[in-house]
């Protein structure tokens, strides 16, 4: 297995406020890694830094052996990093299909196409001409995942897929996520729902107040250790 993503002493700031402190994570090609932690622990910040939405020093983030910390988000999409942002963030005045097509704007070649997305998420196929804001939360989440896949990413960043969705819908979305990882796509999921995150991933990192508190395989995890890392008890 080769290392796809590595952060080295990654620090991130919002103005004067430091949100991440020397975070080191490693993600191998093809694996699914979860990042868990309490509200404000820095999970979304970590994803946004990897996606290029937050500035960092070039060598702090390495993707497929290349220093990428200084790149803009659209450059990273071309290199193969796609993001499903927290709260879906679909383009509200565009139709569902147009939202998906924006995902393929950079023209990166790969297996995903409109028809493949509609196979993965059949409900989207019948809704394709509706404006994105007319969809239910679950359907919007499908469209947001589909939009990210349309760029044919090597690394898919999923921020709070379950946010605001009914449990049965969450289950459906994660079943689809399983099909995506089965294609060989590397996935990082950020979740507040620990059980959901751990059952979908092979390894996890737990953040606490911007620092890495625990890194472990999800098999036979120790609940007490996670609780301690999560709350800093």
């Amino acid at each position: 297995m080769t290392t796809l993503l590595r952060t080295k002493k990654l620090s991130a700031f919002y103005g004067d406020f430091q949100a991440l402190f020397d975070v080191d994570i490693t993600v191998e090609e093809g694996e699914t890694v979860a990042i868990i932690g309490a509200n404000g622990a820095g999970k979304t910040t970590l994803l946004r830094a990897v996606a290029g939405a937050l500035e960092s020093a070039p060598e702090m983030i390495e993707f497929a052996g290349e220093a990428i910390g200084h790149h803009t988000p659209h450059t990273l999409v071309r290199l193969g990093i796609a993001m499903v942002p927290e709260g879906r963030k679909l383009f509200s005045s565009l139709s569902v299909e147009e939202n998906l097509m924006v995902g393929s704007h950079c023209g990166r070649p790969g297996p995903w196409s409109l028809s493949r997305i509609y196979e993965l998420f059949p409900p989207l196929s019948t809704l394709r001409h509706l404006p994105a804001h007319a969809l239910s939360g679950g359907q919007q989440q499908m469209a947001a995942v589909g939009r990210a896949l349309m760029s044919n990413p090597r690394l898919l960043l999923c921020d709070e897929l379950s946010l605001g969705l009914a449990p049965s819908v969450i289950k459906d979305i994660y079943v689809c996520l399983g099909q995506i990882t089965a294609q060989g796509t590397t996935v990082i999921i950020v979740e507040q729902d620990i059980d959901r995150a751990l059952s979908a991933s092979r390894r996890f990192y737990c953040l606490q107040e911007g620092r890495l508190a625990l890194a472990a395989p999800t098999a036979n995890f120790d609940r007490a250790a996670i609780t301690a890392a999560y709350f800093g008890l």
Partner: protein
Amino acid sequence: MEWINILIQGALLGGIYALFAIGLSLSFGIMRLVNIAHGDLIVLSAYASLVVVDGTGVNPVTSLILVVPLMFAVGYALQRGLLNLTLSGGLLPPLLVTFGISIIIQNTLLQFFGAHTHRLQLGVIETQALRLPGGIAIGLYPLLVFVVALISIGGLQLLFYRTRLGRAFRAASDDADTAELMGIDNRHLYALALGIAMIFTALAGVLFAIRTNFDPASGPIRLILAFEAVIIGGLGSLWGTLLGGVILGLSQAVGAALSPTWQILAGHIAFLIILILRPSGLFPRTRD
């Protein structure tokens, strides 16, 4: 019969106002940029045409072959090199910077061309008219300009709703940060947007200069007409902008028929009345 002719003239004049307004509408719609220098860029296009006409002897319409690409390049460079830097700080920085650009353009033109007025000449077509039964006469040139405005808006509509670039424009207009996360290079996209806006600015500037005098200080009045057409039509609606231009043109024509001194004022009064009755314009599109 005289009134019908006045109304037709007014409506056709609206075509040129719509062309004025398209550039303003695009830059505000896509990057929330209020371009105070818009009127001066219109006048700059007219001077660019004047230079080409004087230098080569072609007519002003033919000069568009050079002026349109030139203004596209000016727009692209202006956005890429300067205005992009102002967009992260809210509405005020771009307002101040374009205000500065406006002053720079006016004074540069004054330096090189002097304060006296110029006009572009197109020859006999300027005075020809289609004569219809019943004494109705339609000026050929105003009619052609109106057709140009229709084609421009139709073309932009196709660009926006049928092409990859148009989709990217609409996505960035909805949510610029997310568009960037989806692989759209906003800096390049915005530069293209101002470049495209300048294509219509060049058209408007040259076509208007064939029927009206211009001098280095005539930018601001063109800016106000463009603003009024955009606001009457409703922000973000291109066909609304055309209607806004037509309403302005009609009011001016009616005002001028009542008394020549009322022409400009009548347009402003119509604008104020619509602003009071429909504060967000006749066809508002933007949700924010």
